[in-house]
């Protein structure tokens, strides 16, 4: 087993991986940018080094600095988390060269599945259906125009590298194609360092259904069933659940088999996710492989009863999978909501800034994977994901209600977040019925605004007024009192060690 692991990430996933290391008894080393000294993942780690300035390209995405940190701290393995360098095959190759174990697939498999185009070809060859799309790629506007016409509008502009909706755009008519390609390429370049773009047929009202897969170096491979991630905004998943309300036992088995074919065809090892679109008629199409631990991995952990991150580490260390396909089953239902620092009432504008007061929900079946803390700050430099709230219940409705109540006890004051919006998604009649598709948010929630009745408003105003009466009440009692520096914004960042 590894003697020390470097976690080449930040935020909630870095915290998650640090926990896994701790539980395995392996020291966890963190890296951080100059903007992240006060981040939670740094405080949680056993060791930590600064790898550069705030911009990710100069810190978390800088391969030399990350590898340098691993060597400086004597780490024999690197867990890349998701995003940043997680699916960068050059990084994986560099690790292989430096004799540092990259906790993920081999660089060759990463390169293959990382290119959506090469992956399409490989997957088609083993008989797994793919979405009709352009056969090659290019940077020439005329070529895209021709291909789009051949595929038929609407088409989807996608980045060959990366994921998470970055560099992805739906184009309805030819006139919008060129700016969409240009914007997608720019975004992809910024996010993944690669501006390769291609086109795909846009499937109407599909569900996003993905299969968690796991393969070891002994030749064993299993799938850990599906996650449905249809609730998306700008192609970014915001609510995920498992099991999918849309799968029958037969379809689940068939898609699981297809996912394993993809694993085999690509020589994939360690944890990965095979993404499919499922159309309303039950046809599924391979989308891509996410060659990393996913943001939404906790719902699989809760329903299948495994620890995916610990398993990643064990498998990377050369151990065989600790479970076989026959050991695995789904029990109950789990839902995840992603808590973003975004303002859902204003087009989901990012809402960086200080978290004046926060309290995380609790209770049976509730799990919070968080990268932030009350009194901390959401940085403008990185993804707006703050935390993930996961609810498990014996059945879908029990999980859904738990999620709804948990969102109702998740105050995050000072910045706008998606909490109130998510609560309304979870309570939407169509969501309750499981009638979800990737256009759900645009179709059902486009004009969302927070609502509250007059009685609740009166209660809130009373709370505000009572809050303001406080210091006076104390002063009247003859006691020396001031508002705490930690209760007001602006001077909260007073560190004696700066």
């Amino acid at each position, binding site marked *: 087993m590894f003697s020390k692991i470097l976690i080449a990430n930040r935020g909630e996933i870095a915290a998650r991986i640090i926990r896994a290391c701790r539980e395995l008894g392996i020291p966890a080393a963190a890296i951080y940018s100059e903007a992240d000294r006060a981040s939670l993942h740094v405080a949680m780690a056993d060791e930590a080094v600064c790898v550069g300035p705030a911009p990710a390209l100069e810190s978390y995405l800088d391969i030399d600095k990350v590898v340098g940190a691993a060597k400086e701290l004597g780490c024999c393995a690197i867990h890349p988390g998701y995003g940043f360098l997680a699916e960068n095959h050059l990084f994986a190759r560099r690790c292989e060269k430096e004799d540092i174990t990259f906790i993920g697939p081999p660089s060759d498999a990463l390169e293959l599945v990382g290119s959506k185009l090469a992956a399409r070809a490989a997957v088609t060859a083993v008989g797994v259906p793919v979405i009709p799309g352009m056969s090659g790629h290019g940077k020439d506007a005329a070529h895209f125009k021709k291909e789009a016409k051949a595929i038929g509008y609407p088409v989807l502009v996608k980045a060959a590298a990366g994921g998470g909706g970055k560099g992805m755009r739906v184009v309805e008519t030819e006139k919008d194609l060129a700016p969409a390609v240009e914007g997608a390429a720019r975004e992809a370049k910024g996010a993944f360092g690669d501006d390769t773009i291609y086109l795909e047929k846009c499937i109407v009202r599909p569900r996003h259904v993905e299969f968690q897969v796991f393969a070891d170096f002994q030749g064993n491979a299993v799938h850990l069933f599906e996650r449905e991630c249809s609730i998306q905004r700008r192609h970014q998943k915001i609510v995920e659940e498992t099991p999918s309300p849309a799968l029958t036992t037969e379809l689940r088995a068939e898609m699981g088999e297809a996912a394993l074919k993809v694993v085999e065809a690509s020589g994939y090892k360690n944890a990965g996710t095979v993404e499919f679109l499922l159309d309303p008629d039950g046809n599924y199409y391979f989308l891509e492989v996410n060659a990393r631990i996913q943001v939404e991995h906790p719902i699989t952990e809760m329903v299948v009863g495994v620890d995916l991150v610990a398993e990643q580490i064990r498998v990377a260390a050369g151990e065989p999978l600790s479970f076989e396909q026959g050991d695995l089953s789904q029990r109950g239902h789990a839902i995840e909501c992603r808590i973003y620092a975004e303002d859902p009432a204003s087009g989901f504008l990012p809402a960086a800034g200080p978290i004046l007061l926060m309290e995380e929900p609790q209770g049976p079946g509730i799990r919070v994977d968080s990268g932030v803390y009350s009194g901390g700050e959401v940085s403008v430099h990185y993804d707006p994901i703050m935390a993930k709230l996961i609810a498990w219940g014996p059945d879908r409705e029990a999980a859904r209600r738990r999620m709804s109540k948990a969102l109702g006890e998740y105050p995050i004051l*000072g910045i706008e977040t998606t909490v109130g919006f998510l609560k309304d998604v979870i309570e939407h009649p169509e969501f309750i019925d499981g009638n979800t598709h990737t256009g759900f948010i645009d179709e059902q929630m486009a004009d969302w605004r927070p609502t509250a009745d007059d009685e609740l408003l*009166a*209660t809130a105003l009373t709370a505000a007024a009572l809050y303001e009466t406080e210091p006076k009440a104390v002063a009247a009692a003859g006691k020396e009192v001031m508002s705490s520096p930690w209760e007001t914004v602006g001077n909260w960042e007073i560190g004696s060690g700066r």
Partner: protein
Amino acid sequence: MDFTYEYNGAERTVSLEKATAGWKVTCDGIEFEATSEKLGPGRFSLMAGVNPYRVFVAEGNGALYVFVAGHQFVFIERGAATGAAGAAGAAIVDGILSVAAPMPGEVVKITVQEAQEVSAGEVVAIVEAMKMEHELTTTVNGVVKAVHAGAGDQVDNAQVLVEIEAAEG
């Protein structure tokens, strides 16, 4: 004691009067008795009649943030700068539309030039923050009067990037 806040653009007043056990509250015609216990910094157990509420309050950005029963409220304090809720976006003053950055970030591109004619809905600037691009559009037809930023500039929330002179009529 009266407390007045701005909420969703309108003024709201709540009156507290000492009662035998706690307060008599009057707010927009709603009356009730309330008691309050502090559960920690910014945390209260507020009881309105027999109905308890677990409320969370924080002060910052010239506003009071209140969370109760799953809802977050932002109350602007009287006379406070509206850094909190009154997000900039686009405002027309004297026939000039000021297109401003809706959040701190980096200008990716200004897609118009001075004196250029624009139509409502047209993208005039692209700003990136937290790894996502955001397109800023004009809400009016008109002519670009001034461009105040360029690609690569770091901009603050509410910083005006482009001014557009609205067309008559």
